[in-house]
Every structure is written in C-alpha cells, then in structure tokens.
C-alpha cells in the first residue's frame, strides 16, 4: 500500500474525482456567477452584456443591500457578544455538573440545534405572536404589560427578535464546541490551580479561557459565516419585513433572483457576497491569530 501511495500518478488519479467534483460544484458555479453578473439575464430573454452596471447599481444605489450587510454585522455581533459568552459559561458548568446531569443538560441544550429550522421558525412566530403568543402572555402575567410588543412587525423589535431566535437556535452547536474544548483541558492543570487556591473566577479567566482560544477563534469564524448565510429563519419568519428592516444578504439575493427575476443582478449580489465572506474571513483570522502566526 505504501508503494501505491508513494506513486505520484496514483495519488493524482485517486484525488482526481474529488478535484472534479470540487470544480463542478464550487469553482464552475462561481465563475458562472461572475459571468452572469455582468449581464441583464432574467432567466427568459436573451441576455445582454451590461458591464459593471449591476455592480454600480448595487454599490451606489441599492440601500437594501447595505441594510442587509448592516444586519449581517448586527447578527454577527449578537452571536459573538451574547451567544458565545453564555455558551462558554454553560459549557464549563455542564462539564462541572458531571455524571447523569452532565448528559441530561448536554442533550437538553442541544435540542434546538437538532430541530428543523422550519419548526423553530414557526415555534418562535407563535411564541412572539402579539395576540396569542406566550412571550406577551408571560410579560402580562408578571406585570410588564407595557413591554408587550408586536415583536415581528415593529421595525425596532423585528431585527432584535431575529437575532434572539438565531442565538437560541445556534446555542447548542456553540455550546457543544466549547464543551469539547473544556473537556480537552487536562484535569491536572485544573486540579493544580485549585490546590494553589484559585477560585472559580480565576480558574475560568486564567486557565480555561486561554486554553479555549483556538476554539473561540473557530466559533467566531463560524458565527460570521452563519450570519452571512442567514436565510432560512428570515425567509420563514419575516421574509425581510417590515419594509426591509430584517433583510439579510442571502435572502435578498433569493428575492432578487426568484421574485424579481433579476438573475444578472442576483449574481452580482452573490459575487459581492463571496468577496465579503473572503474579507470577513481574512479579518477574523488577523484579529484572532496568535502573535507570530500572521
């Protein structure tokens, strides 16, 4: 076998199917997107070359696109600032619980992530319904009637609601990754710190968090990627409404392509989308890189 694997032709031949698939499903569509983005293709009529018109309109005139990008950043910030710290704390305490409780908590916390997006979206739509929703009913029951809202229809609360739903939906994954990181910290380090008199706070800040740095980096990258790809929850709850207050780049692309039949323009959005992904990935890598790693 080692003889076979040292044969470069053989290696190339074995890798070839993978490369062909990669080219067909990743590279070719990207190049096709770039091609269509400089046309006025509408899916029916013969396409015309329009140069950079779509990009110019997208960048200079399209307020909804910029609003969508802003929303992506708000969601990323929500995930990084709210979801991740909670996930880390949760992961540490689930690990600490031990025994049966550790297993029970782990399963319970992961349930939302295992549930279909359609179910979670409809569940939250019902929970946030201003007429019969649980959220407003609870607020009324505890005397906070003035806090009751039409959560999904007010421009001020709809985006917050989407961010909170996403934090809830993705919490299981985020916690699970941190949990795996916490489990990977050698027990003797923690024991040694405890013997030296470290309290819980010190243990977390001086031992656990530094060890979790690579995991935090991965989770931040995943959060940004998820925010950029945000589509299903928005489509199934507000579809960008009210107005375009909860519009996200991926959903906007879909609307432009399949509601407005502006395939050329939608492809321009997808190319800009790829560029944003690359920039976001680069910046994240720079920010979270260890010293000397850059």
């Amino acid at each position, binding site marked *: 076998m080692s*003889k076979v694997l040292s044969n470069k032709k053989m290696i190339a031949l074995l890798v070839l199917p993978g490369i062909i698939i990669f080219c067909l499903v990743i590279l070719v569509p990207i190049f096709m997107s770039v091609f269509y983005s400089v046309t006025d293709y509408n899916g029916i009529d013969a396409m015309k070359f329009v140069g950079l018109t779509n990009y110019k309109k997208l960048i200079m005139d399209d307020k909804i696109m910029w609003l969508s990008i802003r929303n992506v950043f708000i969601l990323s910030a929500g995930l990084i600032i709210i979801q991740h710290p909670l996930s880390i704390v949760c992961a540490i305490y689930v690990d600490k619980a031990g025994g049966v409780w550790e297993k029970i908590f782990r399963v319970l916390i992961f349930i939302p992530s295992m549930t279909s997006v359609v179910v979670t979206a409809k569940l939250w739509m019902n929970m946030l319904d201003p007429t019969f929703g649980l959220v407003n009913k609870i607020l009324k029951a505890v005397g906070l009637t003035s806090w009751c809202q039409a959560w999904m*229809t007010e421009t001020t609360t709809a985006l917050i609601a989407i961010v909170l739903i996403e934090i809830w939906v993705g919490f299981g994954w985020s916690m699970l990754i941190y949990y795996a990181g916490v489990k990977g910290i050698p027990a003797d380090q923690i024991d040694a710190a405890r013997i030296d008199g470290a309290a819980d706070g010190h243990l977390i800040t001086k031992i656990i968090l530094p060890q979790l740095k690579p995991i935090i980096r991965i989770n931040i990258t995943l959060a940004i990627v998820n925010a950029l790809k945000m589509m299903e929850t928005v489509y199934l709850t507000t579809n960008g409404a009210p107005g375009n207050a909860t519009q996200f780049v991926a959903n906007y692309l879909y609307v432009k392509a399949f*509601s407005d039949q502006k395939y050329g323009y939608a492809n321009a959005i997808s190319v800009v989308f790829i560029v944003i992904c690359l920039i976001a990935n680069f910046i994240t890598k720079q920010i979270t890189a260890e010293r000397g790693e850059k």
Partner: protein
Amino acid sequence: MKKILAYLLVISIVFAMTGCAGETASNDNDSQYAKTDEKITIRFFSNLPDRSTGQGKLEQMIMDNYCKENPNVTFEVETLDDVSFSQKLKAYIASNNLPDMLYVNSLPAEITPLLNSNALADLSEEDYENYDFIQGALDGYKFDGKLYGLPRNTDFMVLYYNQALFDQYDLDFPTNLEELKHCSEVFLKNGIIPCSLSGQEQWPLALYFQEVILKTSGNQQEIYDAVDRKIQFSGNDNFIKAIELMQELTKSNFAQEGFAASEYGAAMNLFTQGKAAMYYMGEWDMGMATDETLPEEFRENVRAGYLPAFTENGKNTDLVAWYGGGYGVSANSKLKDECIKFLNYLMKPENWAKLSWENGLNFPAQDATKYVSDNDSQLQKDLVEILANASSTSGVDFYDSSTSEFMTACMSICQNAVSGNASAEECLAELDKAADTAKSDMEK
C-alpha cells in the same frame, strides 16, 4: 497486483459517479417514449397546499375521479403556498423544466414570464364553447389570438363578518367609515378583535391598500394611471388621504396586533374561532361556510359584505375584482395531449363549476347560476349579491399590472403603508420609484 487493484478502485469510483447520471438519463428516456395507453404520471404543480378543504379539496377530488376513469394515469402533485409557488415557478421557467400541468395566474406579472419563454401550450378556444365561461373570463389567457389557459375563479375582495357577534353587541354591518369605527370601538371594548388581516404574505395588504384607495377616491383608474406613469403617486391628495385613513384605522387597533406578520391561516383562524368579528379576504374563502372542521355556530353565522366607503367620494359597491387563477399545460411536456385532455375534464362545467358551487368551495369563472339552489349557504348568497350589485370592478390588481420587481416592491411598500411603519409621503415616493424602474425596464 496492488497497482491493478488501485486502478480498479479509481475506475470503480468514476463508474459509480457516471452510473448515477446514466440511470437518470434512462428514466428520462422512459417518460419520453411513454404512450398514452401505457401508465403515465403527470407532474402537476399547484398553489393549493391544503388538499382537504376549499379549492385544494376540489382539485384533488376531480383528479381522483379522473384517475378512476383512466387507470393508466397517475398524478405527481407538487403544492406550495402562493409566494413560494411564484418563486419556484420562475426557477422552473429559467431551468426550462416546467411541470406538465400547472396553476397559471393570468395577471401580467405572473403570466408574462411564461408567455415570453413560450412555456405554455396553446389551447383550442372552440373546445370551450360549451364550457359556460363568463364573458371576458378567458381574456386574461389570450395573447395574439391564442388561448394559453383556463380560469378557475372569479376573484373579488370582501369583508367577511360574524353575524352572531354583530347581533350580540347590537350592531349592524357598517356601510361607511364612521360606522366601521363605531363597530371597531364596541368590539375592542368587549375584547373582540374588530378585523383580522393577513400580512405576512403581503399581497392581502396590497389588495386592502388598493381597495381603501378606491373606497376613498371612488376612482378605479387613478392607481393604474400612476403605475403607467401618467400621474405621480406622490402629492396625489386621494392617495395621501387614503393612506392616512388606513393608518388611523390601524392605530385604533382595527386589525389584530402584529397583523403584518400574521400568516394567512393564523389570520383566518382568528375569525373562524370567533376571536375576530370581521376578516378581509377574497371570495375564495367561501368554503368557510361548509368546512365541517369549523364550529357549527360559526358556519351558520358567517356572512360577507362590501368594505365600506371611506369618504363620500367612495362607493360601497365598487369592487377590487379580477379573473385570477387558472390552469395551463407546459408546451414542452411530453404528455401535452394527455394534460390537455385532463384540463378539459377538470374544467367541464359539471366538474369544476358544479362541484365547486354545490360544495360551496369557490366562485367559479363559469356560469354557476344553474346550480344555485335553496341549499346554498347564506355566505354563497351574499357573495352572489355582492358581485351582482357591483357598480364597478378593477380588473387586474395594480401591483400585478407591471413587472415582477414592481410587484415585490409594491407588496413591501403596501405592508409598510397599512401597518404605519412609513408615512404616506414616504410610501408614495417609494411607489413612484418602483413604478419608474418598472417602466424603464419594460421599455428596454
């Protein structure tokens, strides 16, 4: 030997990949050469996901009857709600993979992409001389003298109401805005939602927007002139007044809280469960009166009336009405003849028109007067009266009368206008921008 095995491994991977494609190709060939006397499967794409009530039930019922009479035919039905249907249809058109038979909306924003891509089979108009279609009903499907589809409904917007709730609070059905506001106040005082509106799909609010403008100005044409750029939306007193009145009504909690995010089914449930006294929707929901899953008390008390006039200029009896949905056959379908045969069966007066009327499921685009009987529900009688007494009808609704992009923009703007998330001036300026873009796109 190991080298030979390795090569075999690579070859088997390549064969496994190409093998799948080969299998698909062979399936395609099977359907290509299918003969009508052999077992055939018609791909049917519908916008009626609920197959147990209303028009979906009727569509399925006739399909099942057809299969019994033609045992070699089966249907592969794909259903989606209106918005998703419209989006997937455009994807089908772009990929040149239209199902054999499909729901076709005759509204320009919907049917134009199908006609431009020559996707619909033309039908022989003479075949339908005895099908009792109401005069003008086929017009939306005719282009360049050819017929491309058959309509199934006469569509118009009404205000459904629960007579029992009106009686309980000693109220009459409103005939003007002041009475509407009074009813609204009384219902609110008693914990009842005055009117249920569905906003998540956006189009019901766009229709409500058009009707409020109509009931404010009394002018059917004005909004279409603005779409055609003969006049501006901005600065038009009728449009401003109408939006201000509808926002005033919204602020007074006329509709349920958060109605802009209410799904169609949820909004309808509020009404059918007696939580809301009125419900603004099209005549196609007439099946509420015969749906046995709904409380009997509700079924006996559901009625329909005109959305009242908002000013002295508006007329109660002006209607937003059009011939909307129907059916067509894919021009490229290998089962085109069989599909046309089924379409003719589906739309036979004794099938679609008779069954829909007798079961109280919808308002056909065919003459149903010969099926009217004393057994009809009060709701059916109300709807017949509403249409018969209409002083004017709109034809194609305004947001569907231009491009697909205009339609999307319009629905979003109307949602904002009705829910009060933007001022009248802001909404009208946005409409002007959308109409300008649509016009320049159409002129290209």
